[in-house]
């Protein structure tokens, strides 16, 4: 459980060092900084997982949520894919109606990462990290993808991960 954050107090002459003030401005704030907000998902599929969409689609199993006070977040994704020529990924935040690629409601056509295999049949990894200031609030992070062909698969017996944290 992340403690609540309170903008630290400006101390003045003759301030009384009260327990309640200290707990709010020192204890709780240090607790907050020690365990800053984060969310993550690790998925190991026991069998190949088909993701056949040739139009942008939500990989709902990788949805994350976060409440942030600074509003600055770092999003990381690692997917391992086989059987396609290329795949692109992006992240949509419905509460703000923005894409991480553009910071607006209009998505960049290649998303936050565009990874290309030399030819069908090769395993490729998509690894992307994005830091963006989205403002303080409570948010959902949806991982979206698009593949060039209908044969896109998430590889089995490996960890596919998505993480988001306040920075």
């Amino acid at each position, binding site marked *: 459980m992340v403690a609540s954050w309170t903008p630290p107090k400006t101390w003045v002459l003759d301030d009384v060092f009260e327990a309640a003030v200290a707990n709010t401005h020192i204890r709780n704030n240090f607790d907050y*900084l020690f365990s800053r907000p984060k969310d993550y998902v690790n998925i190991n599929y026991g069998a190949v997982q088909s993701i056949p969409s040739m139009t942008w689609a939500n990989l709902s199993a990788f949805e994350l949520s976060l409440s942030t006070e600074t509003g600055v977040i770092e999003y990381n994704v690692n997917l391992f894919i086989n059987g396609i020529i290329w795949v692109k990924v992006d992240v949509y935040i419905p509460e703000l109606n923005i894409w991480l690629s*553009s910071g607006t409601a209009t998505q960049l056509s290649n998303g936050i990462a*565009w990874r*290309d295999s030399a030819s069908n049949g090769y395993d490729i990894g998509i690894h992307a*990290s994005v830091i963006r200031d989205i403002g303080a609030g409570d948010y959902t992070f949806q991982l979206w993808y698009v593949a060039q062909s209908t044969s896109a698969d998430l590889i089995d017996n490996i960890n596919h991960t998505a993480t988001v944290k306040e920075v």
Partner: protein
Amino acid sequence: MPTVDWFTPTDWLTREKVTASDFNEQIKSNIQWLFEKNLIVVQRSGITDLTTTNTALPSTTPAASYIINTVYMDKASQDTSVRFMFDGNVFNSSSGNETYFDIIVDQTYFLSSGTATPNTKGMAVVTSQNNARPIWISFQRFLEGVTVGSRRFDFVWWHSAGTSTINYTNTMAQFSAEEYGQPDYQ
């Protein structure tokens, strides 16, 4: 960039008189500094692509054509470390050509080598499959021993041949430097 300064934590002494000024430096300012972090991010998207044809190794004060972005960290605190991140979509005009990346610290040395001459392939390399097929490059790297004050970090690139491109037009490239305290290298 933090809106407040970092103050080296005090070793408090028995019977020491604590003033409001002490609390504002040691508690208010330092908590706020940790909350905001010393993080500089440069994002490029929706603008004209960046290209290079440079094949020679850069110097520590290279021509502008070598520099992808310069990041200034104005409030490096106690002797600390910095985490660099770079994510971007890279092309080269011919299959097999290599594109190299490095970071120059304070116009003095390269992150790849720790000297004024970079490693031949820098600190990261991508090899082109062909011009139509981009390669996403994503790397992170720590630099330890960063000293107090203002620091300059130049993200630079060069390549083996052809024309290399970082795609800004329809995807995002990002460069960042984040103060990170002291990692334990093992």
